[in-house]
């Protein structure tokens, strides 16, 4: 117990207290420069709920998370099943696949700012040469609402695929060889074996990886902040960027804290899910 107390103390002070403070601030009209403000009850929350920008942010957070993580599940699932086999060049290919996860995302997101550049986008160059888009009317990747949303979702999927792949891979490798052999003797092959044998066994670990992806996407600020900062016309505004703009840039700390607290329900659901599946994984 003595050995754990410094850790508990550290976490309590640096996570627990700010969390309580966030709830307190959200109930006041605190502004930049003062930690206290007048008690305003739930008015910050009601004001936000009636704000169309906030409603948009809620919806965009949902889209951003669900679409990017759906792509991640499919791609990472495929990759993990392929990477579990041994083949020549595996080390180099795995290195390539890990790159987006290892590199600092705040920096790689700036790289995408260049790849999406309206005049010199390399993606546009490819599409023009494939005759998919016209040279005279190139897509404005970050400048029009739908394209901007797709662009930030792409980057988020790109950077979470490696982590999911790695954890899925761990799930597949944890299945004992005997299970594989038994399935083979019983005549289970290909998709049937995957559906009835491999998938259920690796599911708990895979779900934990997916829940991770959901938390880190729903609460992430870096990709939208750097690529669009919520624009154009708030079309990519998510909870985190809106909380930052309201709380830091506009100095409206109470409102900002209220916006950020809307992330708590997502967290709660994920936490319950994780506890549930972590226990399942232990049993198998």
């Amino acid at each position, binding site marked *: *117990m003595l050995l754990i107390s410094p850790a508990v103390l550290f976490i309590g002070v640096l996570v627990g207290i700010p969390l309580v403070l*966030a709830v307190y601030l959200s109930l006041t009209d605190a502004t930049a420069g003062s930690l206290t403000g007048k008690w305003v009850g739930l008015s910050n929350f009601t004001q936000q709920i009636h704000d169309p920008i906030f409603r948009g942010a809620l919806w965009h957070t949902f889209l951003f998370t669900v679409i990017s993580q759906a792509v991640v599940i499919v791609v990472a699932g495929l990759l993990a099943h392929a990477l579990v086999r041994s083949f020549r060049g595996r080390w180099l290919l795995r290195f390539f696949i890990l790159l987006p996860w290892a590199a600092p995302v705040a920096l790689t997101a700036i790289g995408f700012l260049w790849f999406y550049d309206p005049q010199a986008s390399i993606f546009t160059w490819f599409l023009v040469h494939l005759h998919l888009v016209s040279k005279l009317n190139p897509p404005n990747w970050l400048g029009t609402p739908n394209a901007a949303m797709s662009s930030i979702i792409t980057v988020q999927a790109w950077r979470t695929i490696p982590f999911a792949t790695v954890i899925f891979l761990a799930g597949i490798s944890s299945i004992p060889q005997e299970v594989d052999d038994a399935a083979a003797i019983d005549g289970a092959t290909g998709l049937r074996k995957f559906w009835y044998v491999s998938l259920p066994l690796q599911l708990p670990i895979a779900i934990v990886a997916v829940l991770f992806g959901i938390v880190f996407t729903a609460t992430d600020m870096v990709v939208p902040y750097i690529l669009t900062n919520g624009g154009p016309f708030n079309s990519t505004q998510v909870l985190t960027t809106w909380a930052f703009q309201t709380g830091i840039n506009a100095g409206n700390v109470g409102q900002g804290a209220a916006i*950020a607290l809307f992330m708590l329900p997502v967290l709660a659901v994920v936490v319950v899910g994780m506890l549930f599946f972590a226990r399942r994984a232990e049993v198998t």
Partner: protein
Amino acid sequence: MTGTWRHKAFAYAVVVPFAVLLAFPFFWMAVTSLKPEYQVYDPTKVWSFHPTLASYGYLFHHTGYLRWIRNSCLVGFAVVLITLAVSMPAGYALARLSGRVGRSLGVGIFLTYLVPPTLLFLPLSRVVAQYLHLSDRLWALIVIYPSFTIPFAIWLLMGFFKSIPQELEDAALIDGCSRLGALVRVVFPISVPGILTVVIFTFSLVVNEFVYAITFISSSTNRTLTVGVPTDLIRGDLFNWPGIMAAILIPSIPLALVYNAFLNRFIAGFTGGAFR
């Protein structure tokens, strides 16, 4: 034998295209970083140009880049030290605590890792400015970062310590070691690879961090890598694209190499904490 051949073909057919897709941005960054600045926008010079290292020179001599790297490393080392000092004993204790209490406590600590910086940055920004008086100081980051590195490190270390058999320690105790002696002389030395993994991944979490760094640090000389590049290398609307690409590649490649080298240990610790 045709079975294994088909297996390999499937592996290549899936892995090669995705590896190319995932790595392509880095390839294109490298190409851009070698272009002379006046040619980056020229559509006829997409592939053919005179490669130059001018952007790298510009980055090192005319910007705060080296200073930001130094700041990031400084914060990284300090945070790694604090994290190890706090989480090694805790991780060990949690690995040896049997029963429900130890397990729940371990999971509880881990869950705090999920509380995102985007939820805490507003109250923390007030705390940093008014109570700690650390606005715009690297110390602010050194104090705050352990809030997410400690839960992460405890989780990994717990996984590693669990894989060390209890008998080994008992043997040391019988040989006359004290409990602490057994820990320092037997358990920690065998865990060196695990601890090294924690050092690397903690360091990279720190280098990656963005939200706190942009909230707490305001002057150019105190910026860390992730904040310096997006704010200072962009002057007004003037982007020095080759220089920015170079600035992204320089830290990314070594980080990717160590990730690749320590990946298996990371997975063992990460899944071991929960699933063993």
